[in-house]
């Protein structure tokens, strides 16, 4: 089966050649039709940058794809004309962003903002039909009285409502791929669950493959069937969601799970990872996680571990993963709330 999106060895750099900083360094993962992939990592791990760069949404300069490929249904976006990528963006790939409060144009009615997503990809439909379709989409994402609300402006809506509008825009053209970049991070906890439901429904209706970017393991565990764990611009571990969460093979994944709070955990049960994720300007030698890794050896500081297959459906970038995989568990993972 041709993956919906297949990212191979993607490297995104900022700045002039020679003095460039690598925000994304050799990232490889793919998502199959209908599947939900969760991308986890701390802020600055390159999880959003990977996808924004893949779809040509990073300002260039300073950002550029310096290596690798991004195949959308078999066509390489990284080598495609910007105009062609634009025709895919918004039509075959829908985006949901983190900041519902600022991701809508304040001086355009929400009906028009949804309709615009349709009009720019279909010259013949006309605004009137597109607006009617926008109203349908609004009721699809659970907005009451869409006819009336379509004529209102973003500032008249709450964050949750605005995120529903953003979702309506994302699914306006029945995309093949839905990219949700921290869709619930800026929202109240009570609204988070609703928005996740709306995304799930939208996904079911459109049959789109979904990439869910989040730093929240709980959200990922709820939604994703596969997981990619990123750190400092690299993929540390990837595999089936349940396997990875229950039996992490990379020390970073294990540490992430240990510091995720659950409903049962008390403060003493939460173990934050010591230190901070490195800045792009001071990337450690060798494995980028080694300064914070409790299992580190001398080799970790000198050589970058290869990102390699372990078993049939697992990839890990750790020098000692073979031993870990044979010797059992890195930690006893706390239960992740599903």
């Amino acid at each position, binding site marked *: 089966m041709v993956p919906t999106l297949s990212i191979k060895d993607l490297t995104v750099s900022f700045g002039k050649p020679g003095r460039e900083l690598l925000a994304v360094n050799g990232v490889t993962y793919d998502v199959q039709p209908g599947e939900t992939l969760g991308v986890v990592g701390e802020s600055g791990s390159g999880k959003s940058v990977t996808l924004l760069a893949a779809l040509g949404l990073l300002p260039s300069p300073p950002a550029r794809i310096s290596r690798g490929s991004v195949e959308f249904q078999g066509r390489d976006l990284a080598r495609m004309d910007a105009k062609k990528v634009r025709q895919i963006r*918004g039509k075959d790939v829908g985006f949901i962003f983190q900041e519902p409060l600022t991701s809508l144009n304040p001086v355009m009615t929400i009906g028009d903002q949804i309709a615009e997503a349709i009009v720019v990809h279909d010259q013949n439909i006309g605004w009137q039909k597109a607006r009617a379709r926008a109203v349908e989409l609004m009721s699809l994402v659970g907005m009451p009285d869409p006819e009336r609300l379509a004529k209102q402006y973003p500032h008249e809506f709450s964050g949750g409502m605005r995120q529903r509008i953003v979702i309506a825009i994302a699914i306006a053209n029945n995309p093949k791929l839905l990219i949700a970049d921290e869709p619930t991070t800026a929202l109240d906890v009570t609204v988070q669950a609703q928005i996740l439901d709306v995304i799930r429904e939208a996904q079911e209706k459109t049959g789109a493959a979904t990439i869910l970017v989040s730093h929240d393991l709980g959200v990922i565990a709820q939604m994703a069937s596969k997981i990619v764990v990123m750190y400092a611009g690299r993929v540390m571990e990837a595999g089936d969601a349940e396997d990875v969460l229950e039996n992490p093979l990379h020390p970073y994944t294990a540490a992430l799970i240990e510091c995720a709070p659950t409903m049962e955990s008390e403060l003493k049960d939460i173990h934050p990872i010591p230190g901070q994720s490195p800045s792009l300007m001071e990337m450690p030698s060798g494995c980028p996680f080694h300064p914070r890794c409790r299992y580190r050896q001398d080799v970790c500081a000198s050589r970058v571990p290869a990102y390699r297959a372990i078993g049939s459906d697992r990839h890990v970038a750790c020098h000692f993963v073979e031993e870990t995989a044979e010797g059992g568990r890195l930690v006893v993972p706390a239960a992740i709330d599903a």
Partner: protein
Amino acid sequence: MSGSYLVQRLTGALITLLGVSIFVFLMVKALPGDPARVIAGVDATVEEVARIREELKLDQGLFQQFTTFLGDALTGNLGTSAKSGNPVAAEIAARLPATVQLAVLAIGVATFIGVLFGLFAALRPNSLVDYSLSAFTIGASSMPAFWLGLLLIIVFAVQFQVLPASGKDTWTSWILPTATLAAFSVALIARVTRAAMLEILRQDYIRTARAKGASERRVFIRHGLRNALLPVITVIGLQLGQLIGGAVLTEVVFSWPGIGRLLVEAIFARDFPVIQGVILVYAMMIVLLNLLVDLSYTLLDPRISY
């Protein structure tokens, strides 16, 4: 927009105008020279001057003089020109259209060019185009109108003899005064447009528009410029006020028959009623323009409502 806001703004505007009229009145009083003597002429006897003083009520108290002046002004009576003997209101009415026409034309040209320049500069920030436009705008805004006007006359009217240096007889005579007047505003409008666009283009909703697959032109105009319009409109409105008032030098340089030249002539002739009248009209127009700019916000930005 609620009616109370409008009432509030109109009251504010009236108070401003009252303040201006007090200021203008006192300023004219403070000027050296005796209006009665100016009107009577150099040969007049002491009795004649005294009679004129009485006619003009200059012998009354300052406050009483002011209330008379204000009452007359409110009924459209700005007094009589000391020089020509015509009503000041009629003199201003005859010259005002030329000033307003020139200012409106200049602001139109300045808006068109300024917004265009600003957009191009914002499209490629820190590029050669951006720097050239910056250099141009700094140059244009640093040149005083009278100097630029004279320069243009020397080049186009004297050297090449392609455009008239003065008057307003043919359409070609509009070109140099308009260019002179527009130069400063072009620069300001371009700078404000550039800054506003760069600010707007960093916003998340611009990324949303791109994520929809909107063309760069659409992103730039429909989402960028539409949002950048607020500060740009503000500057245009304030500049129009400036152009009406600031046209004085330009009108003098190009012998433009507007109220700016009327003012200068009145100052030279110590024609106090005309000076008062013209300044009052300037103030009224600027207050009115500010009001219009404020009210236009509600149309431009749905988040603003009064």
